[in-house]
């Protein structure tokens, strides 16, 4: 980014309502939140508190009902759907609890897919994909199908895919939710390296407070769509 904005992510009175018949569900309700570039923020809260919804709003996958959300200095509310897809492609990378790899594609093809949407020349893709997979230590598994990999390996593939277009922000929705604690720890180390080595901004949704406290710099607690408390954590920073 040329002129680094003050905030990587800046939400002001951000709301996302769902109407079901006459009932209005306030998934995200008047949230104001700022994330500095290179910051590692953990989103915590009970199930249904609106964490995923907030993450999707930052990702540009969902649109706000009210308020504004600015990512990388650009207001997502003013973007066309074409521009939003561009934002998802290049500015943010997403990682999910259920990995969300495409089962019919090999590891290589899964990681390559965002490059296709970014219209990267075919000739230069090979190396980029291999590098990304080497970074998550899966360089030997490129022709395997996702179903042939363990959960931890699949999540590493999905991280490689999220990083392939060099986004500045990584959005992770319970990335360790489906993994045992040892494998989850491995994944957290990969994410931490993204934060520390690649200077990426990280917003990670998690249920596990211990994990959040161990890796994140700041904990944001949500309840009923609102941000209730924020606290700085003391992550076991650079050893």
């Amino acid at each position, binding site marked *: 980014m040329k002129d680094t904005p003050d905030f990587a992510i800046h939400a002001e009175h951000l709301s996302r309502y769902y109407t079901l018949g006459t009932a209005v569900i306030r998934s995200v309700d008047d949230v104001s939140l700022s994330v500095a570039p290179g910051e590692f923020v953990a989103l915590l809260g009970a199930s249904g508190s609106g964490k995923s919804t907030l993450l999707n709003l930052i990702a540009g996958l969902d649109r706000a009902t009210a308020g504004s959300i600015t990512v990388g200095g650009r207001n997502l509310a003013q973007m066309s759907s074409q521009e939003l897809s*561009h934002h998802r492609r290049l500015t943010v990378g997403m990682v999910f609890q259920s990995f969300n790899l495409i089962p019919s594609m090999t590891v290589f093809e899964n990681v390559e897919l965002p490059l296709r949407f970014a219209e990267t020349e075919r000739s230069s893709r090979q190396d980029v994909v291999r590098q990304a997979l080497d970074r998550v230590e899966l360089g030997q598994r490129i022709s395997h199908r996702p179903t042939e990999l363990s959960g931890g390996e699949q999540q590493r593939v999905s991280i490689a895919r999220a990083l392939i277009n060099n986004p500045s922000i990584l959005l992770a929705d319970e990335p360790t939710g489906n993994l045992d604690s040892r494998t989850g720890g491995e994944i957290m180390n990969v994410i931490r390296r993204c934060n520390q080595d690649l200077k990426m901004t990280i917003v990670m949704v998690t249920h596990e407070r211990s994990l959040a406290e161990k890796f994140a710099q700041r904990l944001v607690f949500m309840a009923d769509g609102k941000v209730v408390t924020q606290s700085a954590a003391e992550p076991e920073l650079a050893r």
Partner: protein
Amino acid sequence: MKSYDLLELAGRNLRESMLRNALTTAGISIGVASLVAMLSLGAGLQDLANRRLSKSGLFDTVYVTSLRDFRESDPDQRKQERKVDVSKARALDDAARKDLATIPGVLEVSPEVRFMGEVRYADATHAAFVAGLTQSAKENESFDGMKGRFFASATAPEAIVQLDFAKDLNEKDPNSVIGQELVLRYAERQSMAGSSSPGAVADDSNPNASLGGGGGFSVVRKEQPLKIVGIIEQEPFGGMRSISRARVFIPSQLVENLNMMQYSDMRGLTGDAAGEKTYLALVVRVASAGKVQQVQDAVKKLGYRTFSILDATKGLRRFFTVLDLFLGIFGSLALAVASLAIINTLVMAVLERRREIGIMKAIGASDGDVKTLFFAEAGAMGLLGGVFGVILGWGIGRAINFGTNLWLQRRDMPPETIWASPLWLIFAAIGFSIVVSLIAGLYPAARASKLDPVQALRYE
């Protein structure tokens, strides 16, 4: 998305649900095949009719008669002609013949020569209709399988006989008449002051009939030896005749030189312009069938009556247009059903690939990318279905053609091509298949592109 990526992704998606997509594609193929089959049949039948009609020599021929002679059988035209004073109508004479020859598009003008003559062969006398043929008649289909050859020149003293007549002459071996001599007896029209044509043998120096008065003529019995050079099965240009089918044919120029008496000479005797040589009918050969109408109009303007096969085939052409339309509609019907199969398949695919579409959007696919991907899949099915359909349709056509010819052969009839798949039809069918498939893909593609990724990714 780059087009090679688009094609690659579409291709892998099609392979992914191989059976379903193959069945859908087969459905399109059958639709296209039925369309191709129907239109090929239509085109083939039309070709066949055109070929038959144009080879018959009738398509590029205009018959011209004088308004003095006969009466038009068509009631509308008869009403028109009633206004004309018959005795003042232009005679079909040599001047008229020259006028006709100058009309643009006219290749040649020849008198229609056809008379009942007496023929002597091997000391026996036979009665037969004799017709004159111009050199251009050689192109007629009647000569396709002829025995012997055509006339050496337009004035050669030669004759071609019809097969049945050859059998009359020599029961056992009709082919042996080729090379033999035949003597034609006819009545020569001699102007009072004129002399007999050279080459003709005068049978009797005394005129049989002689009429006094200015410009009269006498009739002399003459004989003309002819060498038989060929045998044909059917009379050329005979399609329109039934009673006066000719059995002996001689070069028309030769006949003209013989100065034979014609019916019109008798007619002329009682008319005002007695003694003047006129023609009963002139046959105008036109450069192409397309110019017949134009020539016909020009001839009418000169004050003559015309007749061409065009008049008779107007209804036929209308029939083929309607036939093509109906065959096309029936053919398209199957393709319409196939297009429903495409819609069904792709809607199913959208439902099945909900999550995949959500993932693609989450990692940066635009609505347009998703839409074009489904379009490409529909288009690919259309292309494949079109190509296989054309092959299938062509195969069906060959089979039907083969079957028809087998059937014709059993009945001793010559083989026919009733099936024509012109190149334009093949490309049009494939193109049509793609277009129909893309239209069918419109709804599924729109549905896929509008899919909300948040919803699609919400639950596992």
